[in-house]
Structures are given as C-alpha cells and as structure tokens.
C-alpha cells in the first residue's frame, strides 16, 4: 500500500491549529441579520397567540416568522411529524415556536425578550412507561413511533430446556452531545427563489430534502454547503434540518441572509439527545455455558417528535441479544412519545442502551456458573460460521474473539480478577475493580435504511496532476477528508498531498446519504474507488506506453510513480503521466456511485442480513473505588476494535480514545436533570463532561484488522464502536469486584454509595 495504512497529517490540521478554519460562526455576509428562536417555556402547551408588537418597535428589529410563514410545515426526517414551527401545540420545553431577527445579536436578544407567547399550559406526558395508555396523544393514537419484532428459533422451548435462567431490568438515561461548537447555519435567499444554506451539519442531503419540502421548492433550488463542523457525534444529523428550515423560512420571507447560531443553553435544552431506555432481558443458559435463548423487551423514550427514533430503535433491537451465537431469540421493542426533548442520533445509536443490559447480564450468568466473564464470552462469542439474532450468517471478517483475547491479554485480566478479589478482602476502603464487556456493530444503515445505502464521489485530475475530490459524506473532526483522500491517492496511484478534497456541497455530488452509522469509509471510500477505475484505466495505459511495457502485470505503482516491476530504475511520475494523458485529450474526470450489498429484515420476524458487515470490540475498564465516597478513580481503559483496516492508524487511535471517554462520560459523569419536563442543567457548569483530570491514567488502544472483502482496502466502520461497551464494563467491574448490582445509569458516586451502604446493612442484618 502506498497511502493506505499511513498516519498522514490531516488535511485540515494546519488551518485548525492556526485558527483560520472557518466554522459557521466565522462567516459574515452582506446585509445579514442575526436571528434568535423564541422557545416554549413549558413541556406542553396550546399556543393561542404570538405577539410581536413590542419587539417590532425596537430599533434594529428586522423581521419574524412563525407557522403562518411556512409553505409546508413539516421537517422531513424519517417521518414528518416535527413541524418547522408548531401551529397549535408545543410539545416540549424549549421547542422553537417562532424566529425573530435583528441587525446584530444583542438587539436580537432584546427583541426576543419582548416577544410574548399567549398560551395555555397543559399537563405533559413525561413517563415513557405510561405513553401507550396515556390520554395525552402526542403521536398517532398510541404514542408509538415505531415497534419491531425479532423471532429466531423457539425461545419458549429454549427457556424450558434451560439449566439456568438469568434476567434483569436495566435503565439508561439521556446523553447530551456537548459538541464544543453549537448548532448554526446561515440561510442566503437567492434572487431566483432558490436558497443556499451554509450549515454545521453532518447530513447536507437531509437538510436539502427538508428545506425543499418546507419551502415547497424543488431540490435543484436548494443548495447546502457544509462548513467545518466543531463536533457532532450524531447531534448534527437530524436537528440541523430543523435549524435550517427555521432560518430558511425567515430568509425567504425578509429576503436577507439570516444567521442563526444557537447559544449553549438553548442548544442543550432544545436539540436532540441519546434516547433513554428501559430494557428487560432474559437469557436461557445450559450448564456448560452455552446460551441457548434470549428474550428482550426494549423500550426507548423518543421524546416529543419521532426524529430518528424508528432507526435508533431498529439498530438497538437488532443488536439487543449481544454479540453471541444464540439459536433462539425473541426481541420486541418500541419507541414512544413523551413531552420531553426529541431524541435522535448519538454515537452508538441505540446500541449503548441495549449493550448495557446484555453485557451486564452476561457477567451475572458467568458468576452463577462459576466461570469468568471471559469464558462465558469465549464460549458464546460470534465467530465465522455463526448466525446473529436475525439469522445473518457470518462468513468472514469476524474479529470478536480477537478483540476479546486482545484486551484480556493486554491487561492480564484473569490474573487481575483474582488478585483484586484478594486485595479487596484486606483493603478496607479502596477496592480494586476491573470489568469486561464487548459488542458487535453493524456497519452502515443496514436494512433499516436500505434506500439510502448509496454514495457518490467525484474525481477530477487536473492538467497539473493535482486532484480535486468531492464526496457526499462530511468530515466533522473524525478525519473523513483525510481518510478519503488517502483512499483516493491509493486508487489513483498518486500521493496523498496531491489530493484536494472539498467540503460537502449538495451541488457537487449526488445524494450520498447521511454521515452516520460509521458508514463513510466504506460508502464514500468505495464510491471513490469506483470513480477512480476509469481514470486509472487511462493513466495505466499511458504509463505503460511511456515505460514501454506491454504486459499490464508488469506495471506497478509506488509512492506516486509508475514503474516496470522488472526494471525499477525506469520510472515515470504521476504528474508526467497525467500531462501526457491531457496531451492525448483523455478523460481524467469521473463520478463514482457505490451501492452497498443488499440488506434484508423480514417484516414479521426480523430475520435477514441486517447489515452488510459487522465490526467488533471488547473493553476493559480498571478503577479504584473508594467505598466511603463512591468515587471511582480510573486507572486504565483498554479497548480493542476489529474494524477491518486502519486507513490512518493515528486517526483510528484518536477515534477510539475519544469514543471511550464519551462512553465514560455517559456511564459515570453526565446526567441531565429535570423538573416537570424542564431541563435544569443546560450548561457545562452542571452537565459534567469529562475534563483533563477525569480520564484514566492510561488508555490502551488495540487496532484489529479482519479485512472486509468488499470494504475499501478491507475497511469496515469504526467511529461508534469505542463508546458502546464502556458503561457495562464499569457496571461489571462493580458487580465482580465489589458485588454490587446497579442497573440504572449513570453510575454516580451517589448511587454507588447508596448500594454499598444497603449491601452493608443487609450483611450486618444477616450476621
């Protein structure tokens, strides 16, 4: 490999360290106004009137818009229930009701304060367990956004034949993305009734579709240009459509560019979150350790609008039984509506929730059978030849056991498990804890998003041999631009530095679907390889000519040069070859279109090839627990991921470390607090994300490459894997080493200490 596998410097590294990379907040346009959203002050209300009269009198006020100004009052996501501006009911605290604008932001703030909403506060539906029966109808008649059913084999029989049945109920909470750059866009109305929007958005094509629907104009009149994104993690997948529609409506109304940048508090209050979940799970196990059955009931709290709930639910459901070869599985799931903040995409997308339940219960099985958590996973873990819960036969690229062995060996887990138990018997206050977990992850949108499972790429090799590359999937910091440039360089036979990859612009490349589901390397990567084929044909032919090679097998490419494999002294550069191609007026520009392998999922029993390939990961978390305060001091996180191929190893490490710490944050530090549906801590003061002092002393990252035969140079997907298994690893550490079971996240010191005290009381009672 020439470019693939090298830790090249990121394409955007220099502009970012110099502070000259432009994020949406850094753009200024002529005649631009600054907008502010007017928000619902309660969780549910009937809107009676919106009064702008006082605001309009303020000097510098530039205009307003609400439901009356929206041609089609729907934001296209999976369904279309989220209005651009609500007409009758506002359904969650912080929902955007109207938008005003002014000549500068300070005036806009003052104007916003003067806008009066006359409303009737209504009783909100807040408990997802009560959604279906509730008299309060938020979505359809039963408040169910979506439900799924998976049936494999005969789970009732399995439970009858079981030697051991283990069950539990688990609850997980919201997670707020806390991207350091808040939501924002600038909508520029064009003279011909078209619109251009610059946005901090992961999915420009989603935004394009929703703005076109909302404004009732065709797609070819909506152009979305992605600006550098200051963090997203899924939080800029769905809601930019809302943000951009709101700005666009006003922009079209007042015919001026509208800059809408969210402040931190309103961002946390109103933008989508990770779904809270309630899971009941049961395993049927034989005494030899084989899991023969699994039954799951999985409930997601989708909040006020469906957003991405249908597909988050789908992914969480498909993976709910865990990364195990289980012959009999039944999973029922649903996502329901409540008058709380709508939930959408967050790194892991339904899997952290179901993984917390499955992986926690697996350790309980191990304990009951008197084997280690490693052994139970070794016995049941997926390998080539096994089938998943949807009966998907795994024929290659299954690195699950490799990841398991990697973390166990790296940390000396089995020895430590014994050692820690001994140490803890003596140690009165500080208990040593170590916990293991694992997961598998279907790469891409899978059967749940099959109609979006395609991506485009555009390559232009210019006369001076510098290459213009355009794709449809975005870089949000994870390094997509870099990795895709490396793939392009590899495919074209030039150097990484020769590639200039543009920001995503819906006018350049066809709808390539969203930048989500860890799909970008495969989808855009393969589209690039596809695009490069015809260009490479011309380049290879001319290179052979210049080198006097008659047999194509003798032509090799190394570091931007073409050579004769039998005589490496003669070589010709990519640049020379391209120049000659242009001399011969050959076509060196091409489009690629990649459609991923067909995925299936039967409507009745959820059986089929749910995803085209899976990545795998295992995690070990090691910490010291102070049983007087419940505080954990993290020593080490070890994470091994099989993601096919590390196109840029350094970037992969960065993704794993970053994902591990986000998982740690969700597991232990982060918690949104509520009263009557209102978020009480919409700020970084009291929504605690890990800081420099809160991470483990040591982070071990292990890259495992079980190449995917259809992946670009073997690559699968990585981005979400590192977050998913952290929480259950911590829970398992507490379970195995301190013998406390906490089934509700987050594992705060308050909760941990309560458990410790309760256990102590029980032990004292029994003495």
């Amino acid at each position, binding site marked *: 490999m020439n470019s693939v596998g090298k*830790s090249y*410097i*990121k394409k*955007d*590294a*220099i*502009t*970012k*360290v*110099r*502070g*000259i*990379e*432009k*994020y949406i*907040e*850094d753009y*200024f346009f002529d005649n631009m106004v600054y907008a502010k959203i007017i928000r619902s002050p309660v969780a549910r209300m009937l809107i009676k009137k919106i009064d702008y009269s006082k605001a309009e009198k303020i000097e510098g006020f530039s205009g307003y818009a609400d439901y009356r100004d929206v041609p089609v009052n729907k934001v296209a996501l999976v369904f279309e229930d989220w209005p651009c501006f609500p007409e009758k009911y506002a359904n969650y605290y912080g929902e955007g009701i109207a938008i005003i604008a002014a000549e500068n932001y300070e005036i806009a703030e*003052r104007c916003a304060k003067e806008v009066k909403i006359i409303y009737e506060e209504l009783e909100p539906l807040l408990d997802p367990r009560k959604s279906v029966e509730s008299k309060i109808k938020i979505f359809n008649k039963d408040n169910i956004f979506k439900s799924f059913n998976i049936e494999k084999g005969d789970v009732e029989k399995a439970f009858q034949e079981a030697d051991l049945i283990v069950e539990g109920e688990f609850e997980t909470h919201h997670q707020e*993305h*806390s*991207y*350091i*750059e*808040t939501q924002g866009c600038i909508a520029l109305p064009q003279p011909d009734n078209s619109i251009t929007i610059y946005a901090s958005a992961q999915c420009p094509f989603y935004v394009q579709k929703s703005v076109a629907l909302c404004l009732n104009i065709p797609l070819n009149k909506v152009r979305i240009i992605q600006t*550098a*994104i*200051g*963090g*997203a*993690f899924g939080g800029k997948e769905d809601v930019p459509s809302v943000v951009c529609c709101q700005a666009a409506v006003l922009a079209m109304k007042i015919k001026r560019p509208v800059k809408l940048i969210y*402040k*931190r508090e309103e961002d946390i209050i109103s933008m989508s979150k990770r779904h809270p979940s309630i899971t009941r799970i049961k395993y049927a196990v034989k005494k030899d350790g084989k899991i023969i059955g699994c039954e799951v009931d999985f409930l997601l709290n989708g909040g006020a609008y469906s957003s991405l709930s249908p597909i988050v639910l789908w992914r969480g459901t498909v993976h709910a039984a865990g990364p195990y070869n289980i012959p009999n599985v039944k999973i029922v799931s649903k996502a329901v509506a409540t008058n709380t903040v709508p939930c959408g995409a967050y790194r892991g997308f339904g899997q952290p929730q179901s993984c917390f339940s499955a992986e926690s219960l697996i350790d309980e099985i191990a304990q009951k059978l008197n084997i280690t958590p490693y052994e139970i996973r070794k016995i049941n873990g997926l390998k080539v030849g096994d089938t998943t819960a949807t009966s998907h036969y795994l024929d290659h690229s299954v690195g699950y056991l490799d990841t398991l062995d990697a973390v166990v060996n790296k940390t000396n887990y089995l020895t430590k498990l014994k050692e820690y138990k001994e140490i803890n018997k003596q140690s009165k206050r500080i208990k040593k804890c170590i916990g293991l977990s694992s997961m598998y992850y279907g790469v891409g949108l899978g059967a749940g998003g099959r109609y979006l499972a395609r991506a485009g790429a555009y390559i232009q090799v210019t006369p001076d041999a510098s290459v213009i590359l355009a794709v449809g999937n975005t870089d*949000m*910091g*994870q*390094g997509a631009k870099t990795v895709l440039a490396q793939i392009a360089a590899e495919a074209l036979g030039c150097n990484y530095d020769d590639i200039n990859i543009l920001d995503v612009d819906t006018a350049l490349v066809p709808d390539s679907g969203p930048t989500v589901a860890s799909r970008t390397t495969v989808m855009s990567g393969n589209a690039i390889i596809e695009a490069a084929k015809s260009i490479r044909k011309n380049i290879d032919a001319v290179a052979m000519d210049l080198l006097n090679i008659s047999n194509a097998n003798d032509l090799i490419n190394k570091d931007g040069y073409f050579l004769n494999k039998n005589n490496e002294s003669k070589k010709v550069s990519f640049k020379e070859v391209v120049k000659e191609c242009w001399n011969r007026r050959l076509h060196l520009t091409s489009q690629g279109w990649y459609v991923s392998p067909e995925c299936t999922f039967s409507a009745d029993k959820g059986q089929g090839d749910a995803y085209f390939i899976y990545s795998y990961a295992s995690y070990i978390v090691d910490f010291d627990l102070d049983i007087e305060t419940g505080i954990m001091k993290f020593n080490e996180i070890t994470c091994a991921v099989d993601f096919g191929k590390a196109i840029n190893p*350094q*970037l992969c*490490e*960065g993704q794993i*470390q*970053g*994902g*591990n*710490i*986000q998982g740690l944050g969700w597991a232990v530090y982060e918690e949104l607090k509520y009263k009557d549906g209102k978020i009480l801590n919409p*700020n*970084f*003061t009291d929504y605690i*994300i*890990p*800081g*420099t*002092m809160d*991470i483990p002393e040591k*982070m071990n990252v292990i890259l495992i490459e079980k190449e995917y035969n259809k992946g670009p140079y073997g690559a699968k997907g990585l981005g979400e894997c590192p977050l998913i298994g952290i929480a259950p690893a911590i829970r398992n550490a507490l379970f195995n080493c301190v013998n406390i079971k906490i089934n509700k996240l987050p594992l705060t010191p308050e909760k941990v200490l309560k458990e410790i005290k309760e256990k102590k009381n029980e032990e004292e009672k029994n003495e």
Partner: protein
Amino acid sequence: MSEQIYYDIECEINGEKIKKQVPSNITLLNFLREYLKLTGTKEGCGKGECGACTVIMNGKAVNSCLVPITQVNKAKILTIEGLSNDEQLHPIQEAYIKAGAVQCGFCTPGFIMSTKALLDEKPEPTREDIKKYLAGNLCRCTGYEKIFEAVELAAKSLKKK
C-alpha cells in the same frame, strides 16, 4: 435600558496597536470576533466553562468571554492568530498536528493558547502539571490523551530551540 455608552479602547493585539470605539458592555471575545474579525477565538459556552475562548492577556491565560472590554485598555493580548503567520507554524501548533491532537478543531485554538501560557510558565511540565493546567479547556472529540502528548512534544521541541 438607558442609552448605549461607548468606550475608547487602546490595546495591543498580536503585536499590533489597536484603537477603537466600542460599546462599553461588550466582552473581549465579542471585540476580537465581531470588531476585529479575529475569528480564531471561539465561543463554546459564553460562561467560562469550556475554555474555547482562551487568549493570553498580559501573559496570563484567560477566558475572553468573561473579560469586560473596560479591562482590555492598555492590555497586551495574544490570540491564536498571533502565534504564526503564513510562513511558519509555532512549535506548539506543529506538535498538535504531529501528535494527532486535532479532531474537529473547535477547542484547538483555546488549548493551544493555554499550552503556550503553560510552557511560558513551566517549560518542562510533568503529565500531572499538564492535566491541571489545561483543566479549564474541554474537548469532546479526542479524550485528551493526544493533547497531552502534543504538549509534551511541544515542550521538547521548544527546549531544543
């Protein structure tokens, strides 16, 4: 609120003398971004809780979102733009690139300024020193590990010079 009061400010930013009349109730961050169009310094929270707006003022790392403009008079300010020009990067910037410490890059200017302030004060910091000193900067992408490595790399590199 009563009529807007203006304030004549004279200060030095990235070595350049600046003289401007601005509303007296803006912050240093507003001043840098809106009035001077130095947009490298970012607003992440506006409340001094994330460090994305960090600049060096009179030799000290501060959250510019909380500095009232009235206290910028006669001050010497260094922002991310002042660390390098088109020709050459500062060793700290090079270290961040080399160590892979830049993902989305939004927290990066703030971290780099804090790093500069740290290394000016403590040219050979321990890992513990680095963690404590940079605790006022939040990053959501990297998990911090590569940022610490970047700072250590920068310290080594600056020592050579």
